């Protein structure tokens, strides 16, 4: 109902005010009354979804924001070394270390050793410059006995204390809000003078891995589409009894544990595995020249394609089911060949399903982790495996957060591109 309808068509016999607007039984304008009752029901609806909203906020949005924050903020050093952190931050990054810097350092080292935080601090600095961990722990053990002049006392323990390099690493660690981790995530190094420089060639890894991850996700998506489209077509067009059976074959692996399916592929593809045995039996290859189908990129591609296939088939299938068969018949009756009828009439109608399946498979594979870890060997590892590595092994959570942040941005950019090219309204999940 629009505003105009109140004025132009009052119901005969109902109360109206001077301007002719409808009034409720208690004399207030009906419009206000309606708005009020709508507000109550809106509030009730909001209260109903509130638990879910809080749950999503607490378990999804907040952790993601915290993770993104951790990628740029690490206050380990500033918190545990309160005297030396501000001095190191104020230092220009090139002049020789001063006595004031050394004094604050020695006092902090003493406290950190008492408080058992020296290991955390040393690990943080060591991320910037290898070898500083033992420098810190060793010096902290002796800090209690050090006397002025402190710089000489430190250099006595290890001459690294006299080097600008060492203090540069301290300066970077002392700055809590830092681009250092994002720089490391794209194979660059943030220096004490505030510049960025690329790492040594032999230590560069993340950028090429991001590209590889995108490439693998694209390849898996394409393979899923090529394999899944005909299956979806069969499912949608075979007689009910056969297609039900086929549907079970699609869903059965979908319901099977991811780990079970991955390990099954190991049994199938390994060099003493089923597939290679068959090849040898058929004489395709010699017994001592079995194919390497697993623990490499091939294995990752095969296993991921198989595991993600249902995510492609199901959306396409649901779209195909909704296409009236009369469309293709009509095209043919108007003189189209089988191919033209398919390509010009049927295929365009399935694009929403392809879009949904493609996006689903692509986004799932870009964050894929377990399968590459198990069957990827040395060259089938993806960026998510390195995020896991930094979470679980090197305990460099800030770097893991930075890598995760970049991955999130990549997914969002791709989503945006998809929306621009295909249109997200066009997507149909079933």
């Amino acid at each position, binding site marked *: 109902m629009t505003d105009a309808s109140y004025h132009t068509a009052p119901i005969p016999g109902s109360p109206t005010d001077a301007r002719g607007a409808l009034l409720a039984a208690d004399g207030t304008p009906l419009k206000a009354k309606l708005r009020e009752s709508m507000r109550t029901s809106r509030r009730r609806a909001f209260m109903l979804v509130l638990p879910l909203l809080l749950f999503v906020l607490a378990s999804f949005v907040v952790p993601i924001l915290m993770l993104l924050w951790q990628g740029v903020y690490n206050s380990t050093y500033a918190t545990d070394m309160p005297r030396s952190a501000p001095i190191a931050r104020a230092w220009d990054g090139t002049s020789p270390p001063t006595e004031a810097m050394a004094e604050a350092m020695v006092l902090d080292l003493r406290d950190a050793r008492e408080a058992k935080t020296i290991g955390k601090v040393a690990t943080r600095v060591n991320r910037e410059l290898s070898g500083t961990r033992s420098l810190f722990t060793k010096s902290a053990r002796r800090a209690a006995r050090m006397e002025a002049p402190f710089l000489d006392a430190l250099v006595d323990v290890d001459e690294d204390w006299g080097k600008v390099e060492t203090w540069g690493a301290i300066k970077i660690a002392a700055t809590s809000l830092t681009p250092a981790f994002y720089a490391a995530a794209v194979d660059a190094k943030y220096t004490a003078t505030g510049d960025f420089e690329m790492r040594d060639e032999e*230590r560069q*890894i993340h950028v090429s891995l991001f590209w590889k991850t995108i490439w693998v996700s694209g390849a898996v998506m394409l393979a899923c589409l090529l394999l899944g489209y005909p299956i979806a077509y069969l499912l949608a067009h075979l007689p009910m009894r056969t297609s039900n059976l086929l549907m079970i074959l699609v869903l059965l692996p979908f319901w099977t544990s991811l780990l079970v399916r991955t390990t099954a592929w190991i049994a199938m593809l390994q060099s003493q595995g089923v597939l290679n045995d068959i090849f040898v039996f058929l004489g395709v290859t010699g017994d001592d020249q079995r194919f390497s189908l697993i623990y490499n990129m091939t294995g990752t591609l095969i296993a991921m394609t198989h595991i993600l296939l249902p995510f492609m088939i199901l959306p396409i299938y649901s779209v195909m089911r909704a296409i009236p068969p009369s469309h293709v018949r009509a095209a043919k009756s108007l003189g189209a060949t089988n191919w033209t009828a398919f390509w010009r009439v049927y295929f365009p109608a399935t694009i929403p399903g392809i879009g949904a399946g493609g996006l689903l498979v692509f986004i799932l594979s870009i964050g894929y982790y377990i399968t590459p870890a198990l069957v990827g*060997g040395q060259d089938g590892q993806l960026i998510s495996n390195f995020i896991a590595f930094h979470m679980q*092994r090197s305990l460099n959570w800030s770097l893991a957060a930075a890598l995760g942040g970049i991955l999130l941005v990549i997914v969002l950019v791709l989503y945006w591109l998809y929306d621009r090219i295909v249109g997200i309204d066009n997507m149909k999940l079933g």
Partner: protein
Amino acid sequence: MKLKTFLGAASAVALSASMAYADGHSKKFDFPDLDGEQLTVVSWGGAYTKSQVEAYHKPFIEGTGAKIVSEDYNGGLAEIKAQVEAGNVSWDIVDVELSDAVRACDEGLAEELDMSALPDGMDGTPAMDDFIAGTLDVPCAVPTIVWSTIFAYDSSEMENGPKTIADFFDTEAFPGKRGLRKSPKANLEMALMADGVAADEVYDVLGTDEGVDRAFAKLDTIKDDVVWWEAGAQPPQLLADGEVAMTTAYNGRIFNAVAAEDKPFNIVWDGQVWDLDLWIIPKGAENKEAAMEFLKFSTSTQALADQASWISYGPTRKSSAPLVASYHSKPDLQMGPQMPTAPENFSNALQNDFEFWADNQDELNERFNAWLAN
């Protein structure tokens, strides 16, 4: 080296461990009453956890009435860090590598332990003198075993098997795939030893850029033939499946495949890299007192000696060595010669340098991962 001699004696003593076991625990160790308590003990799984269950858990449960939940993990401090930082520590005692023990202690992730509470050795030696020199230096951790990274091959597939660490990198004389742990640790050391660096100079060389280049260059020579493993249970499986001709492995895992499953595997001890495993109690563990009791019992002379009858990892107490006898189910299989520290196995051995790895692991891991991916 003290370590070299102390376990060698083990093979000479033919006292049955299982005989000493029966009266050993009930009389020699004073169990507290822990009825109704529950402990979560975390270790590495497989044959190794089995040896701990048999030698530590079972007698401890019987003696104290406590319940023990045994959990497996894959090493590293990530879970402990997460638990401690969340203030919800469900693990009571954890078996860790030396480098992790040091880090856990430095970063305040583990409780400091009262070493004077450790029981004396069975021969009356005070605990501080009974443990191998230097192994009680970490104030948060008590060592249980000496283990080693070695390489092994299937002797039924190779008649004239490899003898030295250099042979592992010689794919011409010994063709076939190689299994290596997917980590720079131990691999870089072994590569340098294979390249002719003496064991006591390995870390000096590895401390220089040229040394690291040299180690990677050596690894490069077999890179195309490597199958990478991550969990300790994988290498014996890779050997058994014929996936690799030889593989690095933890010596106890290979021993277990030989002793319990009669696999024809041979261990090559040349160029072994040995290390310690230790107990730590995570900071704020729920059952700290009970965990300490468990720790005291499991590092007592008899318990350590008993464990050595289940798996070939050397006990860290000198007083345990004479009690180490034969494999629990095979009286003919003497355990002494199976230990990493037996003199004949120990001639070219290297102790893993945790300080070196604590300093350089970020950089070397990065380089190793970049090397793997390209």
